[in-house]
């Protein structure tokens, strides 16, 4: 399956089939080779990281380094990018991916953290043995619950719905709060 040909601009893939390239034994400066300063700045890393061994980094920094190394590519494929990331990082990178997409890039996120997907991804695929097992455009699609730990806001809205309270499908806490407040007041 050629991932580049999948429909969508920012694609979310849930799958066990993919692994990151093995960068062990390499210094970061051997991995990020194009537009080094700009790329590091975009992923919020300092120049000091260039002399570090890739395997000594936290998974958070490893993923930032991998992204920095791919920023110039037309199709950016990231595997388990959310691993080690903090909530604040996810917010930043989601905004960055939206910006990058506007420069005619395709972003493919193969990940298990649906908090990275929500409000970002426009097409979801579940892969098994390199075949598409399921696809949807909606993070609130309840079939996805079988494959991934859903974002908390989705679980909340779905659980309310199961209890007979119908809420619109919000992606942001502020919007949800307003809706709850409207119902309760």
């Amino acid at each position: 399956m050629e991932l580049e040909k999948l429909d969508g601009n920012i694609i979310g893939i849930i799958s066990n089939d993919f692994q990151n390239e093995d960068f062990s034994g390499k210094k970061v400066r051997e991995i990020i080779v194009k537009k080094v300063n700009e790329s590091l700045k975009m992923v919020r890393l300092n120049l000091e990281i260039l002399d570090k061994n890739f395997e000594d980094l936290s998974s958070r920094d490893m993923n930032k380094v991998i992204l920095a190394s791919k920023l110039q590519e037309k199709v950016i494929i990231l595997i388990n990018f959310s691993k080690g990331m903090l909530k604040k990082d996810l917010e930043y990178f989601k905004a960055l991916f939206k910006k990058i997409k506007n420069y005619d890039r395709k972003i493919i996120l193969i990940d298990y953290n649906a908090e990275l997907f929500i409000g970002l991804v426009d097409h979801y695929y579940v892969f098994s043995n390199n075949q598409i097992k399921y696809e949807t455009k909606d993070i609130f699609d309840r079939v996805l619950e079988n494959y991934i730990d859903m974002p908390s806001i989705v679980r909340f809205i779905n659980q309310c719905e199961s209890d007979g309270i119908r809420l619109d499908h919000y992606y942001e806490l502020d919007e949800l709060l307003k809706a709850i407040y409207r119902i309760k007041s």
Partner: protein
Amino acid sequence: MNIESNFNYCILSNNINHEFLKKFFEYPMIDDKLSFNDLKQKIEFNTSKMIVLNDTFYRLNYNEILIIIDLFKKQQMKFIYITSDIEKSLICDKIVVFNNDEIVLNGLKEDVLKEEKVLKRLGFGLPFVVDLSLQLNYYDVLNKIYFDMSSLIGDLWN
């Protein structure tokens, strides 16, 4: 860091590398590579009373996570869950928050998750349920902080 054997711990850190994990080498450790069935089997056959889970639930769906936690209870085992994802802290009794190598918060989940400013400043944020209940408290819709989604939904609509 003093680990008490009668609590499940969440270690929240913004820099989980090999050096950091060495702090927990006295306990058996399971990483995030196992599938649900393999993980279940590994826990069932485990004999130690305390085990370190290095973001082990990363690949699991919510129901699978609940099943594994239930298995820990049945086996009377405790765990130390190491992660950067604050949502996972809700499955634990105590939370220790690290900023690089320094402990910045350490205590019962209910106390640590009240430290909104510190957690947001460090980038961890708050778990959705805690954040939502805090905001609903602010608007006088609720009058306590919740750590469990079902209880929050129950009290909100009843």
